[in-house]
């Protein structure tokens, strides 16, 4: 068998003792296998992480933040009415190559148009390749929003929207809009193997794919011609390790450098390990208990307020999240712009709650149901346990809550149809825009639909006016004001008992330099360096 160049590059130096020029290899113990390398049809973080290293988007989120920064587009202009976006593309952006494909041109407007059409136009020959289910493109409302995507010249793309939509730019920074090579797609179509573009991907990103073995390993190599400069590490390896305890054992031994999703039980030991540091950040998520506001007794704001005061949030978060969550007072997480810190939290006060409940006409308490998800979610490690704690707190003000649960798919469907009185649920944001929380989860549009995400079925005109206005306003300062006000109304009207924002904890070995947590939960290795011992 032939020794590959990479093999020589890594192994030979590694086996000559103290070779000073050893290639820098960073090993990431990832939690599972990606489905493929086409983010347009993916929905899981595992798949996005695998693709993140390979592709670029027109614009991207800054590393470690939610701010949108230029990437394949160097700059852009938005028309005064907010419906026409003109992107000027970066010149000289090179594509990766592999054994089946050698690019003959740089990235240009054709590739950007291809990215849209592949997900948008059913007649595009790639629409159905790998999967016709372009989840995010549809979920972000693109088919309705997009009017046209035109190539003006090789390096200019003009996108026209049907109506102004402020979060559009943030949407373009999401993984689904990763840009693939049109030239590669055409070549593979001609060769009769169109699905290869998603299995042996060609991107413009900082790392190119060398090898993928399902359930074992993903191997990347730094792309020397990357437009923003070669990555500081030479080789990047995803060592696929599904069990959290095993990931921790590997991290301890130095068999990997970064690991996601630690076991809460291991955190103490991790903090004590001198070779490991734990990075921490409140994630873009919220876990909540929604009151069905169109049903008795929760159509009365006094009942909702009384319930909010009756439940001891801090005790619940401490007991269930074990240090991996912070109590939530707003529906959006603190790391998101426009978070209103001046909102006053409802204080825990069973006495006052009881009084308020009596005022609302329930002096002897009441009976209600309380739904708990059957599965662990990123924003809620144990909904059942939380429900039990809530039940005990509510009993103190004379409320008898019956805990109910369904199989997960059924649960969500029934909650969206509003069959509950109280139901727990949560949300993980994916474009860093408050609209993604406030309008999607609490707006009238999604309250009125039977499959909408507003399971409180809460449609409050003053609130809805604010978030709808913010959606079509392009000035961020103005939007911030609108959203801050909306949060005040939210608190006053109490459609939810906001439970917690889960904190992401990332154990990283000390020799890893400048790894930044992403609020989206992505793992980006461009810009990361490693100190060899």
């Amino acid at each position, binding site marked *: *068998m032939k020794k590959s160049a990479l093999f020589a590059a890594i192994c030979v130096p590694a086996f000559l003792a103290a070779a000073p020029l050893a290639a820098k290899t960073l090993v990431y113990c990832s939690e599972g296998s990606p489905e493929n390398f086409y983010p347009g049809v993916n929905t899981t973080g595992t798949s996005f992480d695998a693709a993140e290293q390979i592709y670029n988007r027109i614009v991207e989120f800054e590393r470690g933040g939610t701010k949108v920064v230029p990437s394949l587009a160097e700059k852009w202009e938005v028309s005064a009415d907010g419906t026409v976006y003109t992107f000027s593309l970066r010149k000289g952006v090179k594509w990766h190559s592999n054994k089946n494909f050698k690019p003959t041109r740089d990235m240009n407007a054709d590739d950007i148009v291809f990215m849209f059409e592949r997900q948008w136009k059913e007649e595009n020959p790639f629409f159905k390749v790998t999967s016709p289910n372009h989840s995010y493109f549809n979920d972000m409302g693109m088919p309705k929003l997009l009017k046209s995507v035109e190539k003006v010249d090789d390096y200019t793309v003009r996108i026209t929207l049907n109506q102004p939509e402020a979060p559009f730019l943030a949407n373009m920074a999401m993984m689904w809009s990763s840009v693939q090579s049109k030239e590669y797609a055409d070549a593979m179509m001609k060769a009769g193997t169109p699905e290869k573009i998603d299995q042996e991907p060609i991107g413009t990103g900082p790392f190119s794919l060398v090898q993928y073995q399902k359930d074992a390993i993903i191997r990347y190599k730094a792309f020397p011609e990357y437009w923003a400069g070669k990555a500081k590490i030479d080789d990047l390896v995803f060592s696929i*390790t599904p069990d959290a305890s*095993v990931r921790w054992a590997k991290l301890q031994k130095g068999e990997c450098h970064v690991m996601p999703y630690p076991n809460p039980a291991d955190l103490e030991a991790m903090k004590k390990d001198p070779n490991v540091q734990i990075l921490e950040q409140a994630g873009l998520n919220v876990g909540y208990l929604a009151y069905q506001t169109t049903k008795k007794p929760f159509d009365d704001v006094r009942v909702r307020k009384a319930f909010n005061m009756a439940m001891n949030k801090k005790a619940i978060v401490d007991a269930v999240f074990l240090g991996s969550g912070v109590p939530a007072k707003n529906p959006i997480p603190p790391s998101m712009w426009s978070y209103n810190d001046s909102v006053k939290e409802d204080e825990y006060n069973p006495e006052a709650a009881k009084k308020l409940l009596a005022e609302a006409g329930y002096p002897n308490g009441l009976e209600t149901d309380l739904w708990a998800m059957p599965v662990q979610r990123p924003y809620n490690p144990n909904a059942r346990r939380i429900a039990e704690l809530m039940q005990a707190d509510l009993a103190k003000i004379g409320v008898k809550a019956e805990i109910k649960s369904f199989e997960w798919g059924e649960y*969500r469907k029934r909650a969206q149809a509003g069959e509950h009185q109280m139901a727990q649920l949560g949300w993980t944001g994916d474009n860093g825009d408050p609209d993604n929380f406030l309008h999607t989860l609490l707006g009238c549009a999604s309250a009125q639909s039977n499959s909408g995400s507003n399971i409180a079925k809460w449609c409050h005109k003053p609130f809805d006016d604010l978030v709808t206005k913010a959606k079509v306003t392009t000035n961020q300062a103005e939007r911030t004001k609108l959203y801050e006000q909306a949060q005040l109304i939210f608190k006053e009207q109490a459609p939810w008992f906001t439970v917690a924002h889960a904190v992401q904890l990332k154990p990283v070995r000390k020799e890893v330099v400048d790894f930044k947590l992403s609020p989206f939960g992505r793992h980006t290795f461009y810009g990361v360096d490693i100190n060899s011992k």
Partner: protein
Amino acid sequence: MLRFILTRVSLIIPTFLGITLLAFFLIRLVPGDPIETLAGERGIDPARLEELRKVYGFDQPILVQYGIYLSRVLQGDLGKSMITQEPVLSEFSALFPATIELATCAILFALLLGLPAGIIAAIKRNSIFDHGVMGISLAGYSMPIFWWGLILILLFSVQFDLTPVSGRIDVLYYIEPITGFLLIDTLLSDEPEAFWSAVRHLILPTIVLGTVPLAVIARMTRSAMLEVLGEDYIRTAKAKGLSRFRIVALHALRNALIPVVTVIGLQIGVLFTGAILTETIFSWPGVGKWLIDAIFRRDYPVLQGGALLLGVVVMSVNLLVDLAYGLINPRIRHTR
């Protein structure tokens, strides 16, 4: 003998149909809609939901679905994974060698330790060795695989630094899969070190997966041996003045092995079940892990295909065991 073989082989057909029935219907009895599960929190547009149902054939009556499924299976088409869109058969064949490699090592480990331990325990009945073997094998038999695997990792990998934590080979090696059996592939590559790395990675999973079969084999060998040693012809052999070694090795062992071979055949099923857990702990890229993922994602085609293929493998191994049985024990091939 031919008749014996034919009878055994023909018994396979109803069993095979039974497996397809189970694979098809049992999975559908489990609550949860696969498309809803795919959707997560975001939900899915009702029109799209219908469209996807059509794509995956869920809109047909269930019996029709089964009929289509069976006719496809018979043509060797197990469908495509709903998640990766890869043919189930090709995913299975890419991952199966890893499972075989692990299972083979585990069963060899169990045999190499279990047979001698059982034999010696039987010969030295009621000795400390006998009690030791029985005690340890009882413990081994009752050991929860998950816990056992993690304990071994903590002890041998983290504490003593003797073995790697998980995986099949050090990430430094880039071995192009040829046969899929890493031990062979590394020998074919020109890096001898890679072979040893693969061996080191095999040690802990082998022990974990081999523990239950080891315990069963040791106990079974011991009791079968005890029974045979009490037979008249053994007494006769002793009376004739044969050496103890000859009695045990030539006269007793061959007869004692018959029930042991049956047990080994039955252990194949146990091995595959154990492999699911072992592969998950040790990040071993085999079919066990693949099936677990499929369960979580409600990936029906993979679950059906995987269960079916594993069923066929277990069935074939048991058939081979049956045939081997006939070889060891001539009485069996003459009974009908």
